[in-house]
């Protein structure tokens, strides 16, 4: 007998009471290419969401997750959990510093995994890897359930073969998943999250 899963509810405006910010790099010197990602969380009128929270999860520079189900024969990085959490500021801005994740493997998704909506669009491509990416959860007052998206890197050579990006066929929409290098500012990337409207970010049914 399957149990019904507890539904999600909004974090409301007072989430800072219970949930602390967590820097992905902590205090340790983590090997890898240092990057910063900054942007704004915007609502359907283009206003900054000042009571939002963004959580990030990523692999280390070798493309290894600090998790027992990562089956790859690669080493984790001591002191690097891969998790980060930032609140948005009064203008909806956010910024975090981390290391660029390495590529992680793609996997067979059919037919036992997510048959159903995915079944007909599943990329039967020959890609072994996913392009480097950070998975993101967005929480805020007014979001009854968190939104899931991904950060890819616009200047990464593996983008063209990424199986997930390929499923987003509209090029303009696909671009919402790409963090853009901030020219003249090495290691800095710009990436906004737009909850609604013409520039709406691609969100995933995860």
């Amino acid at each position, binding site marked *: 007998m399957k*149990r019904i899963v507890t539904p999600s509810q909004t974090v409301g405006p*007072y989430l800072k009471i219970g949930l602390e910010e967590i820097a992905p790099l902590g205090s340790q010197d983590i090997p890898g290419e240092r990057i910063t990602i900054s942007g704004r969380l915007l609502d359907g009128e283009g206003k900054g969401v000042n009571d939002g929270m963004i959580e990030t*999860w990523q692999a280390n520079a070798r493309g290894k997750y600090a998790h027992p189900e990562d089956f790859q024969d690669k080493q984790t990085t001591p002191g690097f959990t891969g998790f980060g959490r930032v609140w948005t500021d009064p203008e909806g801005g956010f910024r975090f510093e981390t290391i660029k994740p390495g590529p992680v493997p*793609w996997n067979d998704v059919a037919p036992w*995994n997510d048959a159903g909506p995915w079944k007909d669009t599943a990329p039967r491509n020959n890609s072994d890897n996913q392009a480097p990416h950070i998975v993101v959860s967005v*929480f805020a007052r007014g979001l009854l359930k968190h939104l899931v998206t991904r950060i890819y890197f616009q200047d990464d050579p593996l983008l063209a073969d990424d199986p997930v990006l390929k499923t987003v066929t509209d090029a303009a929409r696909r671009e919402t998943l790409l963090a853009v290098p901030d020219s003249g500012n090495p290691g800095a990337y710009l990436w906004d999250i737009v909850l*609604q409207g013409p520039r709406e970010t691609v969100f995933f049914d995860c």
Partner: protein
Amino acid sequence: MPKVNGYRRQKPTQEVPYLYAPYASTVLRSPQQPLVVLPHTLSEITGPLQGHEAVRPNDNDLTRQHEGEPQGQRIIVSGRVTDADGRPVPDALIEIWQCNAAGRYRHEVDQHDAPLDPNFSGAGRTVTDADGAYRFVTIEPGAYPWGNHENAWRPKHIHFSLFGTAFATRLITQMFFPGDPLLPLDPVFNCVKDAKARNRMVSSFDIETTVPEHALGYRFDIVLRGRDATPMEG
């Protein structure tokens, strides 16, 4: 190519919508484009495993975080965290936050005309044991007004945050109290169509965990997503 055992999706009626107009803040914050269905990959079946190192003594007792005791009805909130197949979720971090007995949060944005309690912060954390069980001591939160609609009041609730075993099992929810007359009027609670799913969020009074001469017990079991069927080789 490696195989990955993902997590099951909910029936749409048991899932919460993004746009739910009775809850006014959803109107400008909900996406209008359909979500893109993402198969679970290594990125989604892994996730932050925050555990025991995040918890300090007294973190699970919100009545002992200050010099004096907070005002209000002392309660014990306990239960088990399992997945949808009934398997316990051990060593899982649970973080909670709530308002005080008067219905006021210790937060600069909360300007409700009700007193703050110098002996109550309203934040707690704990980790589930090997059987998925957890326990908090706190005080019963008050109801409070909010600006959603005319004479709108939130029912008494405690916010719960859990990671579970993977990025895909992340859950932030709210625990409500049985028989609260505000529940049928609350658009946040009622955003879930299926009554059984909605009532997952309502705790039950529990005489077994009620401590004589000390505190009332409420039971709140939390169910996280279950795994897809085990992949067959070949």
